[in-house]
């Protein structure tokens, strides 16, 4: 009998903390996700404090200083125009963060409303709204963004807009799928049976549960947005003002000098892209696992 008593868990251990507190606890204990969080926080901090952190003006340089290899004076060397690469990478973080946040939040805002309407109304409305999504998804993504950027002119805001357009159908379909699944759950039925209105059911009962996969997708979409923006910059559609450094554009500038012993000029901006993207991917994966405890690494 004593053994039975000892084996009974203490009441504190069974205390229910709620979905988000549980998820946060799981996230904190997830090593790779924490590495991701550190990378993401580092990336955001570099972007926010660029004026303090950058050792030089990112646009200042003389041709005499061109292609200087890494040295104590210029930790990551200098580029074709003799500008400090480290300073340009630090300022470039601002461009990447701006495009990523703007494109994902705009894509989320439109995609969520669209997906929620389709998923909740169902029937013919849903059918036709999803066919529009099918059309959008069957267009080649990068070509779609390039076409939009050619139409609107190069620059960070147009790149963000183009990536947002690419994101809308993805978020819409995801949320709509979640809502369809949740609409038939017992607690939604129960809520309906006690007379709750449609809008209330959607906002109070369905959305908080349906939004979980969207949060994960949005974190991963931030990573994709950084890569896409750098890709468009690489193709020459980045900011045209040399005073606004952008990582992809930095790679285009240096692409031609790979054979002239200045490969480092291409290497460091590339590493900056990889680290920031890796951060969001690790964090996104960690969020997915902590929000859905059934998934195990």
């Amino acid at each position, binding site marked *: 009998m004593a053994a039975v008593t000892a084996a009974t868990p203490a009441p504190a251990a069974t205390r229910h903390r709620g979905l988000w507190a549980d998820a946060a606890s799981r996230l904190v204990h997830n090593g790779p996700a924490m590495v991701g969080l550190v990378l993401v926080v580092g990336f955001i901090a570099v972007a926010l404090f660029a004026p303090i952190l950058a050792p030089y003006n990112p646009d200042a340089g003389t041709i005499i200083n061109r292609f200087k290899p890494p040295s104590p004076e210029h930790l990551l060397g200098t580029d074709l125009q003799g500008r400090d690469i480290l300073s340009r990478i630090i300022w470039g973080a601002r461009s990447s963060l701006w495009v990523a946040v703007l494109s994902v939040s705009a894509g989320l805002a439109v995609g969520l409303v669209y997906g929620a309407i389709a998923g909740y109304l169902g029937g013919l409305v849903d059918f036709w709204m999803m066919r529009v999504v099918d059309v959008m998804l069957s267009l080649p*993504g990068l*070509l779609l963004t390039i*076409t939009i950027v050619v139409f609107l002119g190069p620059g960070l805001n147009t790149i963000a807009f183009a990536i947002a357009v690419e994101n809308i159908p993805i978020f819409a379909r995801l949320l709509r799928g979640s809502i369809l699944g949740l609409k038939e759950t017992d607690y939604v039925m129960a809520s309906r049976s006690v007379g709750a209105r449609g809008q209330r059911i959607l906002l109070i009962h369905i959305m908080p549960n349906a939004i979980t996969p969207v949060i994960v997708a949005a974190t991963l979409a931030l990573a994709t947005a950084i890569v896409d923006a750098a*890709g468009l910059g690489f193709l020459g559609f980045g900011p045209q003002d040399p005073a606004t450094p952008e990582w992809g554009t930095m790679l285009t500038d240096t692409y031609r000098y790979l*054979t002239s012993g200045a490969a480092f000029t291409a290497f460091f901006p*590339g590493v900056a892209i*990889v680290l920031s993207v890796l951060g969001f991917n*690790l964090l996104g994966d960690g969020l997915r696992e902590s929000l859905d405890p059934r998934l195990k690494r």
Partner: protein
Amino acid sequence: MLKYIARRLLMLIPILLGVSLVLIGFVHLLPGDPCASMLGEHATVEKLATCRHSYGLDLPIWQQYVDYMGGLLHGDMGVSTSTRLPVLDQFVARFPATVELTFAAMLFAVGAGIPLGIAAAKRAGSAFDTAATILSLLGISIPIFFLGLLLAYLFGVWLHWLPTAGRIDLHLYPDVGGGFLLFNSLVIYHDPAMFIDVVKHLILPALALGTIPLAYIVRITRSSVLEVLNEDYVRTARAKGLQQRRIDNRHVLRNALVPIVTVIGLQTGLLMGGAVLTETIFSWGGVGSWLFQAVVNNDFRVIESGTLILATIFVLVNLVVDVSYAFLNPRIRYS
């Protein structure tokens, strides 16, 4: 099953009509006049008017759309404004390069990804598993153009092992032209040296393009196999004393294949959509760089028809994937 395929093929019509509507609307919003860019700055008003008339650009947009769709029904995809060649001919000339690149990239991604994913799942939690997980995460995080540059620098510029541009050495084979070079070198020219040269040119772009699909395939294979490994029927098979290889092939992999095939299909469709960045870095004359140039040059007919063909391929690849589920998993029935 046949009914299901027929219904899915019928669904193609509204989707492609939608795609064509979006495209034609989009392309006509593009700034600039294709005739002005074709004829240059010094073109007379009369010449511009004649050009616009010959391409039907002086008609209302709905009339242009109806004429274009009418042409499509007769196999006429229009004429490029920059090269003045039929769009279909240009597509046919460039498509083999894209197919070969996609094939090589997917061969690498599937050939390495599935064994790596299975091995990682079977040693879940080990150092090998962690390494595979980190590598696949890096694969997803590295931009294609940066990886392409690294590969070109390492194997081309530094080690001089592999060529970094084009599909074949034009100094050695000046008259080969385009087409399926892997196939042609062996079957038409019977030239193994040419085949090796084509393979050498294919390696770096295929590695660059295949890395993202590889990373996704490793991840999905790992998680899918891990799930199946814990199933009762696998334990039963093991308890019966079946050979490990037989358990892996017949019980584990076969049941884990549905999500893996989904990822393979999706990635193949995406790669067919034109690898603009890879083709730009490795000067690969495929569909991606052709469409990219068309967008830059405002070659409206190429953009419309080229993208429409790619969208059709994408939807068809997805259909093939959906149908393949029924073969992989007999429990899946289509009605």
